[in-house]
Structures are given as structure tokens and as C-alpha cells.
């Protein structure tokens, strides 16, 4: 973060973002490294650390800042006074709600942590898609990019899935010296914990209202399916969490036209692709469409490109593409890895669209308790926007929803609606993204 963004981000936000960015840098480094050198272990990690530290000192030497200024960004500087003042200013009803939300969130986080550390991976998909690959990389000491397709992960791992999370797990196993699934599975919990904290921080920063700021973390934790997806090893929730960060920093860029935020948003977009194939097909396109539509409607497209085309921005974006994206696309192209092979497996119905998926809508959204009463929030969020208020966040969410529906409607993935093996968790991520920004959307609407 210091190398690319200097002292721009500080305090709690820096720590939270650093978890995701650091994890992404390490795993992308190992991914790219395997193209040239075989090896995933703590020694390569320390080598990377040395390179990063050297790079930072080179930047320090060339910049005007002293190291103290960088270290000052590490101060947490958590002041409870604004929170306390906001709480005391609430009505009695809102105070009761706020305390209740806080209590529920804490209990949820504790319960999900206990669940996470008590059981190993159970579901076959999470084992086959992400855990088995990590086991193979740990025992082999790396993965072979060149060779047969089976050798990418070898012996059962599903090669067409992104392996960044698997690389992280293999590395954790290497550091601990043994394979212990519970350590490896903590990735999801830690990411979720930081995201919940993040939604509160960004909401309070914007609204200065503790009641409104607690709503996003409360709504996220109130979605029943989320509890199981923190613990079951699937990457749908992780895709949703990375999307939250991508959308937020692009939203911040659109509010303040600060290109550091745009670059960080782009970085999270690149990391998002490393979580699950859906990111490349659904989440990222949805966010990009939302971004373009917002610029178009605000007539800011030319200003955007004018500001983007500076040496600093182009360098950073170029690095993101070369370091995070190029190796992935190279390996995919080299081995002809499909994005969605399971959907075509045994596909027999050639109809070009499948309207029958809509007959399951009441099951998925109302009868089953996947999402709590989430549909009640949608009018609250969209009310007032029909008059033309523009919201990048809502555009992105709408496009993500729309792309998911299109994928289920027009491709053989419709089968996963009929047997409800994918559709429920796909929309869970969409709802997590939507409610994460509840406070921001609500306050934007009020400021109209």
C-alpha cells in the first residue's frame, strides 16, 4: 500500500485494505512465479518481502516524505467520542435498536468463528475446487504451469478455478509445517470480519450516525445463508466481499475524483478475478457497466480519460494488469481452461432461453429462509431514485443481478436454478453487496 499509494490511506482503513491487498500481492506473486520457477514455500515469500521492502526504500529515497510520515499512517487513532456523541444524540428507540444490532453482530461473529474453527471442509465442491488444490500444492511444493493440464494442480483439483485462495492456503500450511484445515479455512472468516468492520467504518465516516452505520453490518449478518458460507469453503461470499471493496473505492473516486481511489478500486477488481470464475463473467462486468453508465449519464467520460492518462496512473494500472491479470490469462489461454465447464456437462436441452427458472422465484426469495426478509429492503433503497438520482452503487448492483439472471436464463446454467445448487448462493453475494452500502445509498438519497 505504501509503495503504490504512499500515505493516502491511514488508520483502520489501511489495516483492513492491507489484509486483502497483501494477500493478493503474495498469491499473485506465487502464481506468476510458477511460470518461471517451481516453488511455493516460505523462502520464496521472504524473498518477496525483501523485494517489497527494497522497493519501498527506493520510493522513499525518491520521494520527499520521511519514513515518519509513513509510520504515522499506522496509528489507529480510534476515537470513540464521535461514536459516543452520535449514540447520545439518538432517540430512545434508535438507541435500543443500535445496542441490539451491536449485540447481534457480536454474537454472530463469535458463533461463526467457533463454527469455522470446529469443523474441516465438508462440502465436495469446496474440497474439490479449493482445498484439494491447496493440498496438492503443499505436498508438491508448488504447481507446474507447463506440462499436461492435470499437472497444474494434479490429481483431482479442478484446474479451471482460480487458485489464488488455494495458493494462500498452501503457504499457510508451509509456514505451520503441517496441513490443518481449520487454519486454512480461516481465510474466509478473517475476510468476512474485516468486511463487516469496513462497512461500519465507511458508513460512519459518511453519515456520522451510529444507528444508520450499524445497519449494513447488521443486515449482512442477518442473511442466514451468509453464516454457512463463512464456514463452508465456497468462494461466492468471498467474491461478494471483494466486490464490496471494488465498488467502494470506485464510488469514492466518483465522489472526489481522486485517482488513487480509482487505482485501488481497479486493484480490488483484479483481486476479485482471483476468487471465482463468476467474478470475470458477472461481478466485474456488472461493476464496469455501472461505472460506465454513471460516467455517461453524468457526461464525465472525457474528463475521466483525461485525468486517467497521466504517467503515474498508467504506470500503476499497467502494473496491475501485468502482475495480477496477465499470468492468469496466459495460463488460461495456454491450457484452454473453460470458465464454466460444469454447466455443459451432460447438457441436453438446447432451448435458447429457460423461462421456467422464474417459477422458482418464490421458493428462492420468499419461502426458503436464504436471505431473511431481504426483499423488504429493496423498496427502501430504490425509493426516490426513480426520479433520476444517479447512483453508481445501485447501477453496479442492478447490473450484477441482471447478468446473473441472464446467465441462468440464457445458458445451460439454468439447471442450477431448477435444482437450486448455485442460484441461492449467487444471489446471496448480490444481497451482501447491496446491503453493505445501505447507509451510503440512504444518505445519498437524503442529500438529494
Amino acid at each position: 500500500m505504501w509503495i503504490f499509494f504512499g500515505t493516502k490511506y491511514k488508520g483502520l482503513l489501511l489495516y483492513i485494505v492491507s489484509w486483502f491487498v497483501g494477500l493478493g500481492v503474495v498469491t499473485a506473486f506465487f502464481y506468476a512465479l510458477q511460470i518461471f520457477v517451481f516453488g511455493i514455500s516460505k523462502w520464496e515469500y521472504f524473498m518477496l518481502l525483501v523485494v517489497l521492502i527494497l522497493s519501498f526504500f527506493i520510493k522513499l529515497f525518491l520521494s520527499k516524505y520521511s519514513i515518519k510520515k509513513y509510520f504515522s499512517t499506522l496509528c489507529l487513532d480510534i476515537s470513540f467520542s464521535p461514536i459516543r456523541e452520535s449514540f447520545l444524540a439518538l432517540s430512545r428507540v434508535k438507541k435500543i435498536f443500535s445496542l441490539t444490532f451491536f449485540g447481534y453482530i457480536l454474537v454472530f461473529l463469535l458463533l461463526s468463528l467457533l463454527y469455522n474453527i470446529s469443523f474441516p471442509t465438508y462440502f465436495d465442491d469446496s474440497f474439490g475446487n479449493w482445498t484439494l488444490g491447496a493440498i496438492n500444492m503443499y505436498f508438491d511444493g508448488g504447481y507446474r504451469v507447463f506440462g499436461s493440464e492435470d499437472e497444474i494442480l494434479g490429481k483431482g483439483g479442478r484446474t479451471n478455478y482460480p487458485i489464488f485462495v488455494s495458493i494462500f492456503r498452501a503457504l499457510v500450511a508451509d509456514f505451520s509445517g503441517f496441513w490443518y484445515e481449520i487454519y486454512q479455512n480461516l481465510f474466509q472468516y478473517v475476510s468476512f470480519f474485516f468486511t463487516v468492520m469496513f462497512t461500519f467504518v465507511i458508513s460512519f465516516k459518511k453519515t456520522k450516525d451510529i444507528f444508520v452505520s450499524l445497519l449494513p453490518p447488521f443486515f449482512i449478518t442477518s442473511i442466514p445463508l451468509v453464516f454457512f458460507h463463512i464456514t463452508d469453503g465456497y468462494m461466492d461470499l468471498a467474491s461478494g466481499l471483494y466486490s464490496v471493496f471494488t465498488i467502494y473505492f470506485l464510488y469514492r473516486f466518483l465522489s472526489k475524483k481522486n485517482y488513487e481511489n480509482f487505482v485501488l478500486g481497479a486493484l480490488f477488481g483484479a483481486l476479485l478475478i482471483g476468487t471465482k470464475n463468476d467474478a470475470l463473467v458477472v461481478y466485474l462486468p456488472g461493476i464496469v457497466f455501472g461505472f460506465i453508465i454513471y460516467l455517461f449519464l453524468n457526461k464525465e467520460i472525457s474528463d475521466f480519460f483525461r485525468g486517467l492518462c497521466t504517467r503515474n496512473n498508467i504506470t500503476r494500472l499497467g502494473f496491475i494488469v501485468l502482475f495480477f491479470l496477465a499470468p492468469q490469462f496466459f495460463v488460461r489461454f495456454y491450457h484452454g481452461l473453460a470458465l464454466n465447464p460444469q454447466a455443459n456437462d451432460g447438457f441436453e436441452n438446447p432451448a435458447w432461453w429457460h423461462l421456467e427458472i422464474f417459477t422458482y422465484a418464490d421458493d428462492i426469495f420468499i419461502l426458503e429462509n436464504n436471505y431473511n426478509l431481504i426483499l423488504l429492503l429493496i423498496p427502501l433503497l430504490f425509493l426516490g431514485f426513480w426520479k433520476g438520482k444517479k447512483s453508481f452503487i445501485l447501477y453496479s448492483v442492478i447490473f450484477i443481478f441482471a447478468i446473473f439472471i441472464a446467465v441462468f436464463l440464457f445458458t445451460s446454467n439454468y439447471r442450477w436454478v431448477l435444482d437450486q445448487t448455485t442460484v441461492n448462493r449467487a444471489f446471496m453475494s448480490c444481497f451482501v453487496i447491496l446491503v453493505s452500502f445501505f447507509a451510503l445509498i440512504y444518505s445519498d438519497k437524503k442529500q438529494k
Partner: protein
Amino acid sequence: MKLLFAVFLFIISFFRVDAFDAQGFTLFTIDQNIATFECASTCAINLGDYTNNDQVQLSGEVVGNGTLSLGILVGTNVNVLQNYNVQELLILDENYTLFNKNFYARIPEGAQLVLVFSGQMSSQEFGVSSHTAGFITHITEFIQSNEGLTPYSINLRYGSQLFGMSWTQILYIVFIVFAALLFLLGKGNKQNILYLTLVLFLLVMTKNMYDFGRTYYEGVQSYHLSDTQKTFHHMGDYYDFTHNVREKMGIDDVSDPRGINCSYYSECQSHWPFCYNWRTIFLQPCQNTKDPNEADFILLHKKEIPASFQSKEVLHSQNGSYLLKN
């Protein structure tokens, strides 16, 4: 409409169904829900329409050997809800409610609830009744219903029910009614509607916390038991059988099993999760094959050895499950 139906069910819940259709028995008499029967191989009792009878009570002693299965007849297939193994003597005192088994997607209306006996069994006083559960039972079962323990907890497909209706569906109806009232009485004040929304969310979340806590507790209780006692996700002796099978197949013989090359053919009492988890997790790297002639081993989970496999060597047998050498 469904609410009216629920009220109707509540009223008739005081009445019980007495007589049942029985097939395949060499002897079957029933009087005031107490049956005397003898079954030589496969027999069945029709307990009535599944949607009207959401509570089944079974009691008494069954002697013999075989399996007693409670299920729902859909076409010519029985969707098994509960199995009871009879080994010489089985003493039953079961009060089985069907609330959690309403898989919304697809059991057709009018499907029949059946009790199937597979094996040679008899009983002098076998209590069997099916009826609509009472009001209090509905409430207590709703509170105790725990969708988190279903095998499908990656997608919560069962859903807690109250009087046969999805409880989230009931809350949506409650919201519409009360939101309309608040809007009219509050002259368009939307803040009260927000509070109502939050209260309903909190209600669902309270039930969820209870469910999650129970899921965690029961999971820990069963997961850390010995393999023979494990019932995590209600797998019965599946883990213990799988553990023994892995030893016999040689999967556990080496420290890194990825060099093993073997194949197996499997049949299970239900594909999910038993055969499915064998294929995807527990018997890897052995490969599953659909052709029994090509397989090195044949696995049968809670299935009798068919005639075509009778000549094969039994490497391991356990409570009606078998591992055969091809």
C-alpha cells in the same frame, strides 16, 4: 388461502385417522391404531395423504431382520424420510413430525405417506398412527426446527414452517398488513415502517441465532464422537464404514495416497450425500466408475448384495453395507 387452510388443519387436528391400506403382508390386522403383522419380504402400509398427516407415531416391538422405512410415495419411488434397522428386535417409540421435510420444490400434492418393511419381520402390538399435529406441537416443532442441519446448508432449501407455511412467507404477509396500517395511521410516516422492518429482521435473526447455535452444538457433539457414533449431518455409521473401506481398499496404506490407481462401483441408499461424498472426497484418489465390470471394488451402502454380485468376495460388511472385491 394457505392461512385459511392452516386454520382448517388446526380444527381437524383433534381427529385421528384409524384404518390404513396394507400390502404384501402374510398377516395384517389393525384395531384402534394397534397392528399385528407378519411380513416375509417386502410389505407396505399406506398412512394417508402426506399433506394432511404431518405427524406419525410408531411404537411397539418389531422382531426379525430388515429395514423399516418411513417415506413419501411419489409415482413408483419412495422418498425415504427415516430408516429403522431391525436386527432381531427393535423397540420403537417414535413421534415423527414432517415439518422439516417439506422440500418446497417438489413433492406433489396428494403424495402418500408410506411405511415400508423390507425383510422378515413381525409384531404382535405395533402402534401406528398418522394425523395432523396439534397447535402446540406445531409451535414447539417450529422453534426446534433447525434447517441448518440439512445436508443442503450451502442453500437453505428446507425452511422453518409454521402450520405448513413458510415462516418467512408469514412474516412478509405480517409486514404488508402492519406496514399498511402504520402508513395510514401515521399519515405517511415512513420511519415506523422502517422500525417494523427492523423488528421483523430481528425476529428472524433471533431464530437464526438459535438455529446456528444448535447447529454448532450438535455438530461438535457428533463430529468429535468416535466414528461408530458419528451422526454429523445424520450420516449414521457412514463415516465408520468409509474408514474401514479405505483401509481395505489400501487408500490409507501410504502417506501420500495420490500415487494410488484404483476404481470402484457404488450404490447407496441415497446418492446424496453418501455416494456423492465417496466420489468427490472420501475415496479419492480411487475413481468412481459406472460400469461394475470395470471396477476393482464394488461398494454398497445400506443395499443388499444383488444376485449378479453374489459370487464376489466380501471384503467387508457392516450393518447392511458391503465392500466387494471384483
